[in-house]
Each structure stands twice: as structure tokens, then as C-alpha cells.
């Protein structure tokens, strides 16, 4: 099985007021391509830091991060930005849409950054998939929270990422909207065969992934497989 994300002996420390603060301590794990996984843990356990390092948003203090066989810790910030653009999709708790761009333009940005042509139809198709085909010309402030997150989903899948990182994707949504968004995430993910890494408090959401890593105080305390089926296998099986 192909490994999409390989983490070895990863640590992250900060110097603060003359003291060293260890946020992540010697973390190692690997994720198979096309699988789904959750990182859970209480507030301040280091799960978002871990997500940031896995996605190449930050540099580790020590250890190795290998994304799609590329050693991120050897790259500079601009090279990591290119890796993100080529291989990574993001979903944030607070949606993080560009406020000055319309919904459609927000979806188009990752493709434009790649210098691709004729991207409008693909962006429109993605917006259609998340049920917002007719809202493409609206600015983020003109959309509800659920709608914003759906635009952000369309954007995350626009560059056909190998791996999708989602940071508390339902954290800012009500139960009903959350359910719809979660269904969309998993449906789109299954359809595209993308690897999904979820950071969440929500154990029910976590249980929908095939594997749950629990961290506390910067260390992995458990790494368990759930009964959820592998989306890829399910596809093959279907």
C-alpha cells in the first residue's frame, strides 16, 4: 500500500519567556493513500500544530515530514507553498474564504495559481456539486456559515489534491448543517479518492474515519482502527 504521509519522530518546541515549551514530542505515524484518519484530543493537546506540520504550513523543530514522498522539512517556505498547491487541500473551522473574492473566484484561485487555463467550467462544476451553482457571484459575507464551508469544500477539491486536511470543519456550524457538510466531505472524498486527515473534538465525526489517533500533551496516546469501511475498498467492492 502506498504511503501518502509519513511522520517520523516529529517534535515542535517554542521558546517563550526563556522557557522551552514542547507542543509535540516524538510523534511518528504513516497514512496510506486514499484512507481517512482523525486526530482527536483535548484543547491544547497539540493536534492543530500537528496538522499544520503535516500540511507543510510550519517547520518542525526535529523529525521528518514526508508528504507524497517529498521531504517537507528540507524545503523553504515558497517550495512548501508549491507542494501545498500541487497536492494539498484545506478545510478550516472558520472557512477562510478570501473576503474580496466571489464564491466562484475563491474556488478558482488554487487552479489559477497553477497557471491552468479554462478553469471556470471546473469551478462551476464543483460549486454545483456542493449545491451552490447559483451563488457563484456572491461574496463570502453574503453567504451563510454552511454555504461558506461548502464553497471552501469546493475550493479544497478544485486542485484534485492527494490529501485533504480539515481542521474542525464543523466547529462553527449547527448540528443540521454540520451533518450536511460532513456528508459532502466524505462523498467528495470518496469520489476523488483523496486521503482525508481530520482534526476534531467531535468523537462521532472521528468515528466516521477508518483510523483515530488520540493525542494528549503533545504525544500519541492511542492509534486505533475503527469499523468504518475504507472508502476506496468500498468503491472497489461496489
Amino acid at each position, binding site marked *: 500500500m502506498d504511503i501518502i504521509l509519513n511522520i517520523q519522530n516529529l517534535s515542535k518546541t517554542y521558546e517563550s519567556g526563556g522557557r522551552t515549551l514542547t507542543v509535540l514530542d516524538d510523534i511518528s505515524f504513516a497514512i496510506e493513500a486514499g484512507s481517512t484518519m482523525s486526530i482527536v484530543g483535548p484543547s491544547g493537546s497539540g493536534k*492543530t500544530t500537528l496538522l499544520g506540520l503535516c500540511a507543510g504550513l510550519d517547520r518542525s523543530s526535529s523529525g521528518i515530514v514526508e508528504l507524497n514522498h517529498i521531504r517537507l522539512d528540507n524545503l523553504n517556505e515558497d517550495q512548501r507553498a508549491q507542494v501545498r498547491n500541487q497536492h494539498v487541500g484545506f478545510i478550516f473551522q472558520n472557512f477562510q*474564504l478570501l473576503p474580496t473574492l466571489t464564491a466562484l473566484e475563491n474556488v478558482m484561485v488554487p487552479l489559477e495559481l497553477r497557471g491552468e487555463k479554462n478553469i471556470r467550467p471546473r469551478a462551476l462544476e464543483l460549486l454545483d456539486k456542493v449545491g451552490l451553482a447559483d451563488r457563484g457571484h456572491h461574496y463570502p459575507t453574503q453567504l451563510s456559515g454552511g454555504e461558506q464551508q461548502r464553497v471552501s469544500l469546493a475550493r479544497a477539491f478544485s486542485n484534485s489534491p492527494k490529501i485533504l486536511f480539515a481542521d474542525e470543519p464543523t466547529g462553527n456550524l449547527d448540528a443540521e448543517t454540520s451533518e450536511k457538510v460532513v456528508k459532502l466531505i466524505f462523498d467528495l472524498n470518496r469520489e476523488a479518492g483523496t486521503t482525508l486527515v481530520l482534526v476534531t473534538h467531535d468523537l462521532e465525526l472521528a468515528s466516521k474515519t477508518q483510523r483515530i489517533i488520540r493525542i494528549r500533551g503533545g504525544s500519541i496516546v492511542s492509534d486505533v482502527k475503527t469499523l468504518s469501511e475504507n472508502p476506496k475498498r468500498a468503491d472497489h467492492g461496489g
Partner: protein
Amino acid sequence: MAADHKILTMKGQGSLNYRWLLLMAWRDSRRNRSRLFLFISSIILGIAALVAIYSFENNLKKDIDLQAKSLMGADLIIETNKAVKEEALPMLKTLGIERSEERTFASMIYFPKSGGTRLVNVRALSGEFPYYGDIETSPKNASRSFRLSKQALVDKTLMLQYDAKPGDSIKVGELVFQIAGLLNKAPGQTGFNASVAPVVYIPLSYLQDTGLSQKGSRITYNFYYKFSPETDVDKLAKSLEPKLEKAELDYETIESRKENTGRSFEDMTEFLALVGFIALLLGCIGVASAIHIYIREKINTIAVLRCLGASSRQAFLIYLIQIAGIGLIGSMIGAFLGTGIQQFLPIVLKDFLPVEINVSISWIAIGQGLLLGLIISILFALLPLVSVRNISPLNTLRLSLEETSLFKDPIKWLVYLILVLFIFYFTYVQIGSLSKTIFFTMGVLTGFIALAALAYAIMWLARRYFPLSWSYLWRQGFANLFRPNNQTLILVVSIGLGTTFICTLFFVQDILINRVTRSSGKNQANMVLFDIQTNQKQALSDLTKRMDLPVLQEVPIVNMRMTEIKGRNAASYKKDSVALGALRGLEREYRVTYRDSLSDSEGIVDGKWIGKAEPGKPVYVSLEDAYAKRIGVKIGDELTFNVQGAPLKALVGSTRKVDWNRIQTNFILIFPTGVLEDAPQFHVMLTQVSSNEMSAKYQQAVVKMFPNISMIDLGLVLSVLDEILDKLGFVIRFMAAFSIITGLIVLIASVLISKYQRIRESVLLRTIGASRKQILAITALEYFFLGALAAAAGIILAMLASWVMARFVFETNFSPELLPVLILFSLITSLTVLIGLFNSRGVLNRPPLEVLRSEV
């Protein structure tokens, strides 16, 4: 897999995809356009001022070129202020195809009808001068007809002052002339020099009979020539130069007049351009502060872009394109406005201009303005813009423990350096003097650094000595000075710098006016009589005393030239490029006095004062200290003089310090008694008259008895000076208005932008139940503290700058009037508060959620 590994070999982002960058800059600006325009509005006026001045300068140059002929009135002018030597006469009488002769001198004239007397510039003219242009008179034919009989042309303001009409008469010296007409404009004359020395034309043939052309009178001889069009006058003049020099004659051609006129206006346009540049700099500080806050608000957008794969360069370029675009638009509006303002400059400056300005669009000036606006808006925006490169994608997850630093970046220092170099370079191009450029750049930098330091000090002090006992509203307003996202630095610098500039202008004007009025204080002489012949001295003194007036000072004056310094003549110094001072010393004329003691406005610096020359021993003279240094002589050095034909050797016996600000006769060079008593000389007398009536009565009596004696009524000089200062003041105020309005726009922009800093907080306070009144009070207090501190800082800085200028440039005291300063202080403070409150009204009148949705 191999394809995936490709990324490792790539060095950063390959192509920048400029089309996409332009598109993103365009998209991102869509919802911020009014704000971006606000940023840039502060440079519009600066650009407008510069484009107006550059256009004016270009048009002036063009018009000087076009009108140089009528400015001069002749192809060649030969002049001297000494009686023409016999041997030069044949040459002077044969040059050109047409010739005119003119003698000009200062003299009193008398209006018999009104009984008024006035010192004027008499021009006795023969021939058909001017050959180009005309002497403008009313009636029009008076400019020609006055030459035919005993008639005169009298300056139009004089006619008005003394209620005279054509047909009335005036007395010049011993002779009465009929007034042929009003003189509106003589060739090359400006409104400015007409008010200093009003002109009266008389025919040259009557000069002798006036009795004013005696030996020793200070008369300038002008010879005007017209040549056939094919003559190369410059070449001819050049070939005549040795002859002219030998006969001590100066000459001027149309070409040399063009150069001289152009040069004298360069100084003025340079000064105006510098004032415009200050307005632009002030605006740029506004741009920099606005962009700083704009970028701070864009941190999240930039972080998201970085997350999605944009390189730091791409993110930086998106905003650079935005700023450049809006800078260009601002410059275009400025250039358009400047071209419009240019129409008014000739009106504002009309009293100082020798030529008529034909206003036309100057594309060069517009191009200069556009380029300057673009460069300067980018340069100033770069300061906050370089921070874009450092914004981490981690900001999207809101867990960046290392705060995105907007200051600790070495590139920032490079930008600062480029900025300083640019200001330096631009100033140097404007004024062309290295020392003045350094002075100006240092002044701007010092102001900037002092205000920034003050802002930091305020923040530190406010935190250190926080008034815990104050009520909540006061504490909240006060704490806003140092809390995160505070605007202390930006507002103190921008408002402070604006205040400094406006206030300094005000103080300097005050210093200049004070300096003039101080010298005309009580118990000082206010009437100067000169051109007194030796044989008139006693009679004049008697007349003065008879009229109960004091003879405050009476000094003899001898005109002479210096022919050698330390045994070397002008020809020898000409070969020596270092000794320019000495050469100038040999080229001028000296008005010298002789006496046995020093006056109370003088003091010996070096050497020994010797008041009496012993027969057969060397003559020791005293030089003004600074002048001695300028011509490079020390105690004991030898000087040779030509006293109206007679050579005279003397040694430098002492150097003196002279207080030139005193109204009395002061001299660069003083001889001891016992040398010059028999030389041709005239005398100057100082007296003090108590009233205008007394002054008129005394002047009438003197003119009647001694028509050759001229009088200067210092009261009149002061009122003329006042008029000139008023006109100059208007020009300065006109230019300062650009800075003042720019300052106001910067203030509005700074405060308006700061609203975005406080909006979330105000909404939050509103949400948890703060009343409208409470939020108003907090906002008002914050802006009050900021406005008051910035205004006070600006005023203090202006006082310091003015004191330095008063002390070292104008050499006078500085005692600022406090009332206008207090008014300015309260005006700026209340403006800041008002604008601040006006901006926050949106927060107060609408539901919190609506505000957050629309504003953020």
C-alpha cells in the same frame, strides 16, 4: 512517483504569472476601492502643487525666451556707474544702427499741487529706446511725446498717491516738468521693483538744467543699441570685451539677460517646488500609515493565499500592483488638478514677474508629476508592504505563536535607506546645493524620528503610569494609546508632522515681520538724507536744528575701488580659481567712511583700531571681520585703492564685528581720519521725525533748499516692505495651503482608517450592553489624547525649528505669540476628535451584527 519528486528540484515558484497577479490585484481591490482611494488622496495635492510649479517654470522659461527682446528693449546695453572715460566715447557713439542714452539716479521729486515729496528713480532718456516692446503709458502716445519738450512720465502709483493728473507738473531738481502721462510699465520692470523705486522719465536734454548731474552724484549711465537683424550681437560684444573692461564698462545682451532672468527665477521656483515637495512628503506619510493598517487587515487573506500555494513574492506583488495602480490614478488626478492650478500661479506671482506668462499645458511637467507620484507612492508603501513577505500561512489556523512581525525585517532598513536617498536626491535636483540638501533632508528626518520617538515615549509612559484611579471610560480611552492595534505612532507622526510644518511657516513669517519692525523702534533714526555735498553740510544741519529735529549721525562717504589685494590685481586672481572671494572684492565698488572712533554697533575682533593716520606713516584701515575672511586678508596685509583716479595704499589694521540690524550707517571698510578729507565725497545724515506731517514738512523744506539731496523716510520704506512681505506672504500662504489641506486629508484618512481598528471592539462593547454615550465618550477620549499629544508635539518641534532659524539664520530673537499657537492646538485637537466621532457614527447607529458583516 518520479513526477512527484520533481518538486524537490524546483527552486521556489517558477513563473510569476503576471496576468493572474494583475487579476488578483484587481479582484482584491474591488471591495476596498474607496479606502484605497482615500490612501492615495493625500498625495494628490502634493503632485498637483509640483505639476503646477513645473508647468509654470516651463512656461516662464518659454516666455522669457520669447519676450527677452522686449524685456531688454535693445540688442545691447552698455552700462557704468562712473562718468564715461573720454577714450571710450568714440566707440560708444558709433556702435549699432540706432542708439539711445539714459542716465538714472535716485532723487527727490516735488509735486507742487499737493506739496508732496518722494524719493524716485529718475531716468533721463534720449533717443528712441526701447527698440523692442514699449514704455507702456496712458495716454499711449505719451511714451514718445514726452521726449520732445520739458515733460515727464510718472509712475502710476505715485500719480495716484499724490493725486496728480497728466498736465500737472512736478519739480525734479531745479526744473519743473509737465506730466505727459502715467507710466504703467517700463521695459523689464516688475510690479515689485516699481513699488520699491517708482520711476520718473524725463528727456535727457534737460538733465543738466535740473542741477542733479554734478560731480560725485551717483548716476548710472546706460547706452542702448539696436543692431541690424543679421548682426551676431553676442559675438560682437565678446570682441569688444577687452575695450569695455579697460573703460570699466559692463554690457548685457539679450542672451545674457535671458540667462540672468531665468536664473533669478530658478531660485523662486526651486523654493516653491520644495514647498510642494513637503506637501507631497506629508501626503506620503499618510499613504505609508494607511497602507500599514491596510496590510495588517490583509494578513488573513494573505495567509489563506499562502496556504493555497501562493509564493511570498506573488502575495507581495499583488499588493504592490494595487498600490502602483492607485498611485498612478492619484498622480493623474494630481497632474490634472495641477494643470488647472497653474492657471492661477501667474496671478499669484504677477508682481514678481518681468514677463507676461502665456499659460499652456506642459506635458513634461505632467510626465514629471506622474513619474514622481508613482515612485513616491510605491516607495512609501514599500515600508509596510515588505511585511507581506513574512506573513505565515499558519495564521489561517490561528496558532502562530511567533507573532507576525511587521518591523523586524532587514529589508525594511533597506527601504528606509532608499527613501532617505530618494528625498536627498529629489531635494538636490531641486536646489542644487549639497549643504542645503543635507540641511533639508536632516530636518525632515529629525522631525520624523523625534515624533516617532515621542510616540513610543507616550506609549511607554501611558503604560508605566497608568491612571488606575480614573473612571472606566477615561481608563478605556487612555489605554487605547498603548493597547494592541493602537494608532499612537501613526497619528502622532502624521498629525505631528503636519502641525510642525504649518506652525513653522507661521513662526517664520512672524520672525521676518518682527525683525523689520524691531529695527524701526523708538529713539531710532527714521529719516536718512544722502547725496549731501560738503558745502551743504553746515546749512542742512542748521535747517534741521531750526526745525527742532536732532542730527543723530552725520558721516562722510567716499566711493572707491580696490585694485590690488596683497599686491595682486584682478587679472592675477582670475587665473586662481580658489580665490573667488578676492576677485569679487576687486570687482565691486566700496562706499567708505573715515572717522577717529568706532560706533557703538561695532567691536574689534582682531588687530588694533587706529583712528588717525600720521603723515608719512602707513594708513591702517579696518575691515568687517566676515568680509576680510571672504576676500582672504589678515592683519597687516596690503590693499591698494583707486579713489576716483588717485591710487592709495593701506594696511589692514583691524577687523570688526558689525551689527547690521541697527538703523544707522554701517560700513565694511573704514579709513582713519587724516587721509580722505580732500577726496570727492558726499555726506549722509540721520535724523528722527516724530510724525508724518513733520516728515512731509521737513522733506519739503529740504527739497526746496537743496534739490539734489535725497531723503528716505523709513516709515515709507516700512510700509513698502510691509506691502512686499504681504505679497510674498500671500505666495507662501498659497503654497502652504497645499500642505495644510494635505495635512487635513492625512488626518481624515488616518482617523478614518483607524476606525477599522476599533470597529470590532466597539461592536463587542455594544453587544455586551455599552450605551451609545459610553462608546462615544471612549472614542472621543482616545482621539482627544491622540490629537492633543500630536498637536503639542508638532508645535514644540516647530518652536525648536523656528528658534534655530531665528538664532542662526535670521540672527534675531524668537518670541512666539502664544494665542495663535493655542488656537492652532485646539483646532487640530478638536478636528481629530470630530473626525474620529464622525467616523464611528456607523457603529453607533446600526445593529452590531450588520456592522460586522458589512465592514469587516
